[in-house]
């Protein structure tokens, strides 16, 4: 399948809670292939979630191995079905952008390490800890499965670098 167009907000699918993948059939395998093709063609894209291509199912792909921020610590190309975060730790703020919200970026706080459990296309279940940028990318893509956009998580305005208190 060719790469699919990335849907942008306000497409309603982006705010829906996606349904779990219950059976791995040809349609799911085709979805995985579409997600991978779409990620490969997005300029500098490190992940795509199924809702972004119009499919409200709990599936996403992540690959930070070619990114400057992710090349030190990563698990390569990840296909994640029904991913769950089973543990998280640390926190850091990063300025994120999203292909579904063009021309806007914002400071988002994410866990710096997440233990994630997910199924792959063969039905096998994996669990491991991701850190750094890979952890950020996984959290961002998984948010799409719950209809959460980075706009829902912005922690500070660009002008809010230091909060003003009293003037004496």
């Amino acid at each position, binding site marked *: 399948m060719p790469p699919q167009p990335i849907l942008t907000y306000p497409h309603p699918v982006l705010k829906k809670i996606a349904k779990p993948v219950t059976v791995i059939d040809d349609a799911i395998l085709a979805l995985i292939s579409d997600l991978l093709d779409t990620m490969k063609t997005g*300029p*500098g*894209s*490190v*992940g795509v979630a199924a809702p972004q291509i119009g499919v409200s199912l709990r599936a996403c792909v992540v690959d930070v191995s070619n*990114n400057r*921020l992710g090349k030190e610590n990563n698990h390569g190309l990840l296909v994640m079905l029904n991913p769950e975060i089973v543990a998280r730790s640390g926190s850091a703020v*990063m*300025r*994120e*952008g*999203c*292909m579904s919200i063009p*021309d806007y*970026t914002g400071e988002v706080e994410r866990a710096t390490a997440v233990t994630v459990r997910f199924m792959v296309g063969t039905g096998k279940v994996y669990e491991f800890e991701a850190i750094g*940028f890979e952890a*950020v*990318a996984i959290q*961002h*893509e998984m948010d799409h499965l719950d209809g959460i956009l*980075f706009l829902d998580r912005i922690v500070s305005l*660009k*002008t809010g*670098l*230091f909060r*003003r208190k009293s*003037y*004496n």
Partner: protein
Amino acid sequence: MTKKTEELAHFAVTIISKDRPGIVADTTEVLYRLGCNIEDSSCTMLGGDFAMILIVTHDKPFPKIRLADEFRLLHERTGLTVHLRTLHEDELKHPSEEGELCLISVYGSDRPGIVYQVTRTLADHKINITDLNTRLIGTQEEPVYVLMLEAVLPQGMTVDATSALLETHRNELQVEISVRTITPVSL
């Protein structure tokens, strides 16, 4: 000014008021009533004042005098001050920010010229500031000046090279300067 320019429906609106709840609501009520759209805006507390800068458009040709009249009434009622400027079409577009985005923090004991010296060097090297905040902190005995700015580096300019450009100011102004990349991650 030609009549055509006068009727362009793009304006920069600057508002400053002694801070109180309701400044944004009062201002945007006027704009809403006149059918104006807020295309872009930045509003913040500055000292005990609240400052608003808005790019405002109207779908149809719209005389500046109508906005001015409305805001004059608001000024008379609440004391906020307004400045209006007609914008040309090309001032509405966001210029593309192609290069690397970095955050430069400058801080140290307060002294004259910190903002000027640093920004002059940046300007001389075509480094474009996109956002800037300053604040005086510390105590009366030991005032500390903090300058935070975001800037786009031109092609070929690196974070390290930018940091090196500012080295003379570290010594002459006796301030700490750090430069780091904040180019957004695209997910």
